[in-house]
């Protein structure tokens, strides 16, 4: 079968699962007076449509910042504005100032879900396809398999189409940035990454690798010659993009300060509600390594959140499907020889006292063990009641287990990164 048909089939499967998940509940559904992320996004459409730009981030009678005040950078606000224009065309009640607070209806839900699908198709999915075909190794069938697995990644689907967010925009733009750098289109990569920074400030977590890579590249080209010129071009791209995004806020010095204050609220705890988003940052990092058997463990941390949203069924189905698919298609466990897992560093250390240790087998056992632990925790979170003295037992256990995994991955990936041999980068990889 030709490539284009296989790709279309993968994309269609991805789109079908996304839309099917969107049938289910969203964050804060039917839960006045605060509701949830879904209401937050609707509220931002209301605010950006009805109020002038200089009032968006300020507290006043028209804009109560305590009720889902805007706390993402301007690009999110512009996106909400565009959505609001469409909403106004379809049904003005959806974005009526004040009166639309807590508005919930079947058609509104369809509209909101459609906005997520639209941006997904526009930004995220093309980036994934390009990534798989230009940066993955292997035959075209393996690339298609990788694309399918990435497209069916449950975490993104559940959060964007279940809980309700627009992570596909920020992750998609970040992926475009990575693609740009990988293909040698540095300015394009910069542009894309700056845009994603202006969409969600969480992407700052990724900014250091970008910065270091580009700086390193410029230094390599010689800071007195071409490298310097390149650095200037990059800086100009970044500055101009920032300026364009923040232009409406530059008229008055108070504006950018207030926006920054909203983006980085030092007053309250930094990890409240942002937990669901930090995994997104890790997610991109890991995709780049395509060791997909590992990602299954990452979204367990979201289980308490998903249960609160009433998304148990999609969680179970998409996780099982993804797990099975990645095991089957990518033969993840079969590729776990020591070499492929790049366990070299570990090998060196353990060689002294445990020479007979079969590390790859240990990894396999660890994988199955984590799966069992995850399944058990999922089961207990849903069906068992925690003891009265420890009401938050299960969410805490979930967090602890996830943290241990994250820690393990950080150590592992650092090791891989340091051990990576210098590759002659032929940037335009032919298929």
């Amino acid at each position: 079968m030709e490539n284009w048909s296989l790709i279309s089939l993968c994309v269609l499967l991805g789109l079908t699962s996304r839309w099917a998940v969107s049938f289910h509940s969203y964050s804060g559904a039917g839960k006045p007076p605060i509701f949830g992320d879904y209401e937050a996004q609707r509220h931002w459409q209301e605010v950006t449509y009805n109020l002038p730009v200089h009032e968006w981030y300020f507290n006043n009678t028209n804009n109560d910042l305590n009720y889902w005040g805007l706390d993402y950078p301007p690009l999110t606000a512009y996106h909400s504005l565009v959505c609001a224009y469409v909403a106004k065309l379809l049904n003005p009640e959806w974005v009526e100032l004040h009166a639309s607070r807590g508005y919930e209806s079947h058609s509104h839900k369809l509209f909101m879900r459609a906005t997520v699908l639209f941006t997904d198709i526009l930004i995220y999915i093309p980036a994934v396809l390009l990534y798989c075909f230009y940066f993955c190794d292997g035959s075209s069938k393996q690339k298609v398999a990788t694309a399918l697995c990435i497209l069916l990644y449950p975490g993104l689907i559940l959060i964007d189409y279940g809980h309700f967010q627009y992570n596909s925009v920020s992750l998609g733009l970040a992926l475009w940035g990575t693609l740009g750098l990988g293909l040698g289109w540095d300015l394009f990569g910069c542009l894309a990454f700056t845009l994603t920074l202006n969409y969600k400030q969480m992407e700052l977590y990724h900014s250091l690798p970008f910065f270091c890579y580009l700086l390193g590249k410029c230094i390599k080209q010689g800071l007195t010659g071409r490298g310097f010129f390149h650095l200037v071009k990059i800086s100009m791209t970044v500055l101009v993009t920032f300026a364009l995004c923040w232009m409406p806020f530059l008229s008055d010095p108070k504006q950018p300060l207030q926006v920054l204050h909203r983006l980085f609220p030092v007053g309250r705890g930094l990890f409240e509600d942002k937990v669901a988003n930090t995994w997104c940052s890790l997610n991109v990092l890991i995709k780049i390594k395509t060791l997909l058997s590992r990602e299954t463990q990452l979204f367990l941390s979201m289980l308490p959140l998903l249960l609160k949203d009433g998304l148990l069924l999609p969680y179970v189905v998409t996780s099982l499907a993804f797990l099975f698919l990645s095991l089957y298609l990518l033969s993840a466990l079969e590729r776990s020889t020591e070499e492929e897992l790049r366990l070299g560093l570990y090998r060196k250390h353990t060689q002294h006292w445990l020479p007979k240790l079969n590390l790859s087998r240990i990894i396999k056992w660890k994988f199955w063990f984590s799966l069992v632990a995850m399944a058990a925790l999922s089961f207990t979170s849903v069906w068992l009641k925690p003891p009265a003295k420890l009401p938050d037992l299960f969410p805490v256990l979930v967090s602890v287990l996830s943290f241990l995994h994250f820690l393990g991955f950080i150590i592992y990936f650092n090791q891989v990164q340091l051990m990576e041999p210098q590759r002659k980068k032929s940037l335009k990889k032919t298929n």
Partner: protein
Amino acid sequence: MAAPMTNDQSCFFALALGVSFLKCLLINAYHSTDFEVHRNWLALTHSLPVPQWYYEATSEWTLDYPPLFAWFEYGLSHIAWFFDKEMLVVQNLNYASPATILFQRLSVIVADVVFFYAVKECCKCLREDKGKDLLGKPSFILTVLLLWNFGLLIVDHIHFQYNGFLFGVLLLSIARHFQNRHFEGALLFSVLFNLKHIYLYIAPAYGIYLLRCFCFTQSNADGSLQWRSFSVVRLVTLGTIVLSTFAVSFGPFIALGQLPQVLSRLFPFKRGLCHAYWAPNIWALYNIADKAFSILGVKFKLLDINKLPKASMTGGLVQEFQHSVLPSVSPLATLVCTLLSILPALFRIWHRPNGARGFLRCLVICALGSFMFGWHVHEKAILMAILPLSLLAVESREEARIFLILSITGHYSLFPLLFTTQELPIKIFLMLLFTIFSLTSLKTLFRKGGALLNPLEATYLLGLIPLELICEFVYPLTVWQKTFPFLPLMLTSVYCALGVTYAFIRLYISLLTCSDNTKKIKTQ
């Protein structure tokens, strides 16, 4: 992890599991009144004694399937009891708690296991084709065409029915005939008929085939009948199998003297040549021709507008469609037409049987013939032709071509079943998924010998895209939506009827001109 299964088996398992996951995600989708129909049947079989099953009329959805299906619902109701007892109360009309929905949907998904088994058996009946990579193997293609069939997915798992389970029994019966296990095949078909009597349409194919190829144990060298080889034993055994199945199913009701009541429920006198949405068959074309003639007649002053029945000029899709120019069609007329349409095929397999494949062709023609000419046909009945045709499509070029036209057109004609906005993306994505797969895989399978579809056929199929855009996106925004709301449905029905008729004709040509494998038709 060394896979304990072979490559093929693990692939089958992956496809089956994948489609089951998709079905689970669709649990929360729209469901039609058929959902309440089955809930009502669960309730009445559980709560009422057997003698009252076919008399119960609290709900408008009375039991109109044969007794074996009622027993099936009875069995399900015992499991339903653990999910939500309230759904088993007959008076709880339109009861649809989350537990009820979950149970009913899961029952369809689990019942599909029968379908999975049948598909596996059918794949074994295909001619071996070694040396091809997995995606190009006929068994792989057939597995996907059946397991991921668009029609089954949306009719069973969104609209809500148990067709997967029933078609599983049908395909298993067909597979048994391919495997020369004719007694099992006959038994399965009798069971199927007692589960849903619509399969009466294909009973002639079974009857003629079994009589000709099984009861007459041998044929002459040129393929003609050898009268002396008639085996009374086989005939009697077959008869016993069929009759005993009927006895188990209808027996209790005959004993209670309720047979007339049961039959009246099974074959209700339904008004209307077509139901509210015209199935894309001959009568849709007949209706539109009638409308066209009446409009033209009035225009050219050949007809007096006052003498025409009121409804025909302004009305759209009503159950009682009164023909104004062409003669009205009665149920008897449709029966005669149906019989006439399938007789040549039956005669063909009697005269020159072509083994199990000839039987299958005849079966598809019977199904399609009754779809084309039957009384009050539902558009879902097209699946009875599409699914068995899939088996032929992966082995023969001509049938692959017919399959593509019939399946794409037939599946598109199911679109009006899902009329909600929420399901619109799903039906489009799934339709594209199935269509792209069937087109590309069959094209690759039969790439030797030029293009599979000729330009006319390709243009017709491509015409479905603008049709969909007009009917679903453009038309609702126009002024005519209020005055002629039926127009998109009519357009869809008529356009698809053309494709289905074309497929029917081609299928007949294929049957009548197929090369006789008369080398040695050893039937047993």
